[in-house]
């Protein structure tokens, strides 16, 4: 399959960061006027092919815009293309795309991270000022760390998921990339807020109410009264940063060294660091994959080759359905659908899915306790440096373990940021800050202090 079928696409993009190149000017002279934005290819764009990195959606052209895309247009941004990604967001290296792997602009031999690897690479290479990705278990923070840019995973419910092609909807949020914390926060300002088309965007932070719902007088949303870009002021004097020992111990030595240097810099700026413990995270990766795969097995049932997708051809319904999916889905997607189906099947539900939900509740409680002792928590974003392309594909389990520091945040529905903290062996190392629910300003402020 061609890596890029847009005119001048391939020549302009040796990184294979884009699946489709377009130019869509914003509607008005808004806060993002003059800025270019790349959009992950699982976010619907009216009239522009949206493939999710899958052969299944090779020819799919959405008839509507995702809410975040509408908001980009309203903010005056120019959309410059749809970015490459792990198929349906399933992967941590952007190597499972049906359109070929994306290269890391810092060192093209290495992966850019995933699954929003195309978005991170586009920003790191200067092909776009800003980008949107989606983060289900770290898919914004992982490639941000590996490509040396900033990525934010918002609190679940801050940003509308309407028009995001669902993979694991209880976990995923759309999030911004940029080369600076302030720019990423400005993009978050543009996309955050309530959306009546997505009931999981929260109205009324205090009471959890819905706009216009009977008996809910307060219809404010956390984003309404907040300006995230203004929080990128680097002023962390007096802030308490908790360091969860479990999430530092597991990281490679050269990663830990960069992380500790960055912490020392923060201390010099008036930050107090405290050790905190998150005993539950030992089970977070297992719980995450059981939940994500289970949700995937259900969400991806819509790809039956009738309304869209690969035509299953002759045969009865079941045969046609199964052959459409055999042809349209890649290995990692099939693997997750099958493991999810297994985990939900009679006899195994209690062993896997129910236990995973217990672990999720435990992780949430642990984070709440740790965040009662600190304003934000800090960890290395990724426990490893970006691997070389082709290194990790054959061993799914090793790939899943790479997500140890990012997935607990999605299980707990909290906000987090990854900011470049330095380099080791010439490759970027990211630092992650995690905040309390709707505490985006705190993680943005902490992140901005690392870059200043």
């Amino acid at each position, binding site marked *: 399959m061609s890596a890029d079928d847009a005119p001048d696409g391939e020549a302009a993009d040796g990184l294979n960061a884009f699946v489709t190149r377009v130019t869509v000017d914003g509607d008005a002279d808004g806060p993002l006027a003059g800025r270019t934005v790349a959009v992950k290819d699982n976010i619907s764009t009216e009239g522009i092919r949206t493939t999710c990195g899958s052969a299944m959606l090779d020819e799919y052209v959405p008839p509507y815009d995702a809410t975040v895309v509408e908001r980009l247009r309203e903010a005056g941004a120019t959309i410059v293309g749809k970015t490459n990604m792990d198929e349906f967001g399933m992967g941590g290296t952007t190597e499972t795309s049906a359109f070929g792997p994306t290269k890391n602009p810092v060192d093209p031999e290495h992966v850019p991270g995933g699954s929003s690897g195309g978005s991170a690479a586009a920003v790191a290479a200067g092909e776009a000022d800003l980008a949107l990705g989606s983060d289900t278990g770290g898919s914004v923070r992982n490639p941000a760390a590996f490509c040396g840019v900033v990525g934010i995973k918002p609190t679940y419910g801050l940003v509308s998921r309407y028009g995001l092609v669902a993979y694991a909807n209880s976990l995923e949020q759309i999030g911004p990339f940029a080369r600076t914390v302030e720019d990423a926060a400005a993009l978050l300002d543009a996309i955050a807020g309530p959306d009546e088309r997505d009931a999981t965007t929260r109205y009324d932070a205090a009471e*959890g109410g*819905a706009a216009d719902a009977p008996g809910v007088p307060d219809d404010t949303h956390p984003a309404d009264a907040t300006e995230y870009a203004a929080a990128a002021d680097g002023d962390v004097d007096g802030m308490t940063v908790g360091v969860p020992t479990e999430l530092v111990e597991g990281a490679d030595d050269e990663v830990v060294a960069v992380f500790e240097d960055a912490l020392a810099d923060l201390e010099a700026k008036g930050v107090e660091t405290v050790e905190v413990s998150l005993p539950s995270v030992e089970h977070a990766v297992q719980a995450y994959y*059981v939940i994500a795969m289970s949700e995937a*097995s259900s969400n991806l049932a819509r790809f*039956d080759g009738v309304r869209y997708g690969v035509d299953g051809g002759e045969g009865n319904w079941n045969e046609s359905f199964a052959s459409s999916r055999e042809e349209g889905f890649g290995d990692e997607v*099939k693997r997750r*659908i099958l493991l999810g189906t297994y985990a939900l099947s009679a*006899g195994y539900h209690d062993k896997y899915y129910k236990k995973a939900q217990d672990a999720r509740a435990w992780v949430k409680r642990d984070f709440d306790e740790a965040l009662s002792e600190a304003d934000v928590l800090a960890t290395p974003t990724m426990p490893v440096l970006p691997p070389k392309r082709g290194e990790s594909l054959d061993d799914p389990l090793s790939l899943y373990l790479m997500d140890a520091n990012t997935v607990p945040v999605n299980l707990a529905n909290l906000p987090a940021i990854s900011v470049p903290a330095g380099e080791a062996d010439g490759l970027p190392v990211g630092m992650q800050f995690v905040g309390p629910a709707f505490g985006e300003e705190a993680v943005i402020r902490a992140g901005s202090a690392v870059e200043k």
Partner: protein
Amino acid sequence: MTATDEGDASAADADAVDPDEVRHVADLARVDLDDEEAAAFAEQFADVLDYFAALDEVPEVEDEPDLVNVMRADEVRDGLTQEEALANAPDSEAGFFKGPKVS
């Protein structure tokens, strides 16, 4: 795989996954697999399910999130046109999706 033995956790042990079980699950999930895929998945599933088995150590945790009704008023609004809805279908006829026969 019978997959109905509720109390018998040992049946779910990783080493019990063979290509036939993978095929059975693939059947439930409506995904065709060739022999090579079924064999490779069986091997990988053993590792992954073995890893998932660590969830046995997780204690029961009470989680009672505050839930609110987020229903909106049931009003008629513009949706996709029939033409838009059908635009991505591999096959359609007289304004309808055309699917394979059900049995």
